[in-house]
């Protein structure tokens, strides 16, 4: 399973989201709030054994499943 599928699965299960597209805005849709960001970042770091730099924690990198997958991919290299 790729990053996108895993991350999408995590968000759907964690926040009880039925209809989550890879390009759905997690913030505009209200799926994730500030506490959710903390949970998401902790999940990503544990799941993929990486440490995300605070400078990378910007809206553009966390807004959608696609963006998050890209962020993880870039940090796994």
């Amino acid at each position, binding site marked *: 399973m790729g990053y996108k599928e895993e991350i999408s699965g995590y968000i759907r299960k964690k926040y009880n989201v039925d209809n989550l597209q890879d390009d759905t805005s997690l913030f505009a849709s209200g799926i994730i709030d*500030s506490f959710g*960001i903390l949970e998401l970042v902790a999940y990503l770091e544990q799941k993929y054994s990486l440490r995300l730099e*605070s400078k990378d924690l*910007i809206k553009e990198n966390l807004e959608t499943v696609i963006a998050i997958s890209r962020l993880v991919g870039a940090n796994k290299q």
Partner: protein
Amino acid sequence: MDRVPNDIIFSLEAPGHWVAYNVFTRTSLGIDDIAMNFIGVIGILSKEDIRQFCNEKKARIWEIGYFSNCDGLLADPTRRLRDINQWPKAVEVDGEQLLRALKENWIVIEDEEDYRKRFALKQSLLDRNNFGNFHQQLGQELLLERRKVSGEWWVKQKFSDDFKSLGNTLYSAIQGRFLKEFFSQKVKPGLKILDVGCGIGFYSNMMAQSGADVLGVDPNETYIGIAQRTADHKANFKVCDVGKSGAFDFIEDKSFDIVFMSDALLFYFVSPVPEPVWDIQILFNEIKRVLKPTGCFYSVEPHYTFWLAPWLGDIEHPFTILTEYLERKYLVTPAYSQLIKAFAKAGFAITNMEEMLPDDNFKKVDTRAYHFAKQFPLWHLFELKYFRE
């Protein structure tokens, strides 16, 4: 074109050790004489000049800025390491590196219009473009740098681990000391007191210990949970949507001798999120309804200069630079006229007002904080009475 904005002050901390400080962004950089010379000619240097500037001898800089809010809301708001003995090791930089460091700390800017536009609310806690207000900066730092939940952090920075006392900070030296004495004069056995926005109920319990029957209300379930676990036997607590119309519907008319509020009204003027603040008159209408005709409303709030005033000057002879008052961007507290007009509009008359000062014993704990708090008060108390028509 690169330039030094008019928001910068320079101070000489020791020979060859300058501090360049942006009073609006509260960012600073320690710089040596070579770097000071560089700053003096910024704007007339070509790219080649910048590359050549430190060719013979590199400049030295010290990263002395830090986000001091995280040490507690009453930590030094200047946000820089003062003692040069505590400065980190100097970093030697060439002209390009020096210019980059100056720009990162907003000592040098590229575009005046872009820089000024950044003094706006953050659109979210992930927004690193706009500087945002005090609350947003703190929220972002806690969330993204410290990875902490702000509500939990707030309690820890104010109270001891068992929530039974205030930490040994200006909270206890000013607010705690003042209110202990104030309650001993005003709170009598049998009085009925409503503590609105009581948080974990610390002051509710203090008033209950003087024999009053206290009801503490707060919208935060976690705080009320702590309050109930640490409650004095004469204090009760209830989760309640303070500020919303009908929030006090479970309370009878004219039933409280005292309504007390501390560190809560500011949020009716300052929103930590880019949304409108709640209408303070809705809250005041509820308070008026439950207050007895002879009752008093005591409001303890951060002073209008709270966290707006960097702690500058000699350790025992402080001065400050107030960077905003009526047109607020950093925005911690309302201006006095805003608060007083809100009281007046609701029909409250001010019958007393105190500016709180620190306990002299605190001078030994933190001399600079003590002298600043003595010169520039951190909290005030209003005594208010409602005059019914």
